[in-house]
């Protein structure tokens, strides 16, 4: 074939090919479907939060301080959530005091000390399973164990212990993950200059894993803050006689924010609808703050290896 004028040069061929793209129709369809899924999720969230905010608005407009600072009451116009706030905060403190040392300790043992035996693997797997056990089961456990067997009664301590047991597997798992993220080369470096196992863990592994551990444990506290079912089992009640002092709650009846939401949502008077929504808003804001703290800490101290 002779080289005529109709022969394309390499440049022309390349240009033609590069510009002949017809797009990727199947890819576009899929992208659309994915976008739709995301929009459905977003819509649910917006409707849910929007609906609650609108219902709660009158309460916060009429008596914002009064609502947060007043005691429970059967008369909607005077009802507040002060016992719920106090009770929930006290519960979280108990959970933190109990679940964090035990959970972090167990995780350090499993990650840093325990040999990789079938037994250790079985334990690790089962801790993951424990994290998936429905919370009502922990409520039953708390009722049998803390309220009855240990004779603590339906007190704040029993509630706190129950929630601590509930979040323990989560604390263990997140701590183990944070410890695993510290590279083995760091441990070797410490051992290599003659550090003992404990010196290596105390001076290097734990400090470098601390942001991850902190993030995970704070998130688990947020989980404990929102739990309702186990608390109902072990006796958090929303009676009008619930004391407004934490000291009394330790010995007698106590309540928590989610319990109040549950109780009020079942009340016949219409006015309680708005109050329920307002209590939910308070609950959500607290959980949001807890999670935001965790995210801030993670972003601030996140380490690339």
């Amino acid at each position, binding site marked *: 074939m002779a080289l005529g004028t109709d022969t394309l040069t390499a440049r022309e061929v390349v240009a033609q090919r590069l510009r002949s793209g017809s797009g990727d129709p199947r890819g576009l369809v899929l992208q659309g479907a994915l976008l739709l899924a995301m929009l459905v999720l977003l819509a649910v969230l917006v409707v849910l939060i929007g609906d609650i905010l609108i219902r709660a608005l009158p309460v916060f407009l009429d008596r914002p301080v009064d609502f947060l600072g007043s005691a429970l009451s059967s008369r909607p116009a005077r009802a507040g959530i002060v016992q719920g706030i106090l009770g929930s905060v006290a519960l979280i403190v108990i959970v933190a005091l109990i679940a964090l040392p035990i959970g972090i300790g167990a995780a350090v043992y499993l990650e840093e000390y325990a*040999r990789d035996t079938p037994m250790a693997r079985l334990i690790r797997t089962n801790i993951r399973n424990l994290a998936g056990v429905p919370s009502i089961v922990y409520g039953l456990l708390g009722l049998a164990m803390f309220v009855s067997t240990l004779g603590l009664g339906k007190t704040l301590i029993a509630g706190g212990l129950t929630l601590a047991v509930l979040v323990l597997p989560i604390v263990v798992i997140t701590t183990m993950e944070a410890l695993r993220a510290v590279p083995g*080369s760091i441990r*070797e*470096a410490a*051992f290599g*200059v*003659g*550090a003992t196992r404990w010196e290596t863990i105390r001076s*290097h592994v734990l400090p470098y894993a601390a942001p991850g551990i902190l993030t995970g444990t704070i998130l688990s506290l947020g989980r404990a803050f929102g739990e309702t079912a186990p608390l109902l089992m072990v006796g958090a009640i929303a009676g009008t006689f619930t004391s407004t002092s934490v000291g009394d709650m330790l010995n007698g009846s106590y309540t928590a924010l989610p319990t109040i939401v549950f109780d009020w949502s079942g009340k016949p008077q219409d006015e309680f609808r708005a109050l329920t929504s307002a209590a939910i808003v308070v609950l959500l804001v607290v959980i949001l703050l807890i999670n935001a703290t965790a995210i801030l800490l993670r972003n601030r101290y996140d380490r690339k290896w």
Partner: protein
Amino acid sequence: MTVHTPVPTGSPAEHEPSGGPTIRVMTTPAAIDESEGIEPAASALATPPTFPPEEVVFELDGLSCFYGSFRAVRDVSLQVPRNQITALIGPSGCGKSTLLRSFNRMNDLIDGARIEGEIRYHGVDIYEAGVDPVEVRRRIGMVFQKPNPFPKSIYDNVAFGPKVAGFRGNMDQLVEESLRRAALWDDVKDKLKQPGTALSGGQQQRLCIARAIAVEPDVILMDEPCSALDPIATLRIEELMRELREKYTIVIVTHNMQQAARASDYTAFLTMGEDRAGHLVEMAPTEQLFTRPANRITEDYITGRFG
């Protein structure tokens, strides 16, 4: 290249133990396959050099290393002389690093790792019951393949070892001295509070060397210390090794044969058999191993015909 060698005592033949390691090495099927035609006399030449007892830092006696049921190193017997640089060379996966890490019980940290045979350090079997591996590692320091400074300040990187060893003297002075000996002081003297991880790769590795010598060890083990470094940083570390040799005994694993030839006094060549277990082929003064290897496999390896 200057090679300072204590003269090996006597000819190798005189020192060959009955049924000695070299014979066993040579009778492995793989060794025979690959070194076809080697006379028995040649294998006798490959007996590792021996040294007067006071010059011997490590003595390996029939050492095998296992990971679970897998044997990574088979039956290595050799001596490491004092204030010399001994290089371990050989193809990838021949167990050089495993062997090196058994010198300071670093493999203890790996589940399922164990040894058979003996490693005597100044005459003491370091795997014997009652020997504290922490004390072993204090005396036998290590520099790793990838620079691994702690994500702490340069100062704290160097000071950590002495601190856990209970050092009560002038820490500032010790840190400066260690950094000077690692040829890093001039680079970092104005930024001791900055993180060690912010240094360049070569500087990080010198920081790791400073960290290792801060605890005043007797031996420094180096596991391919230059494999992550550029040629200039590599040369800098090699110069440093020559300086450090005055005070320390150095054992280095290297992939780089030029590095072994340039920087070491003695070289041990390992390869692996068909069971994938590494074994010692020969050990000799570096110049001799690279110019007059006693073994065909060694010659093939150093001339680049395999590995």
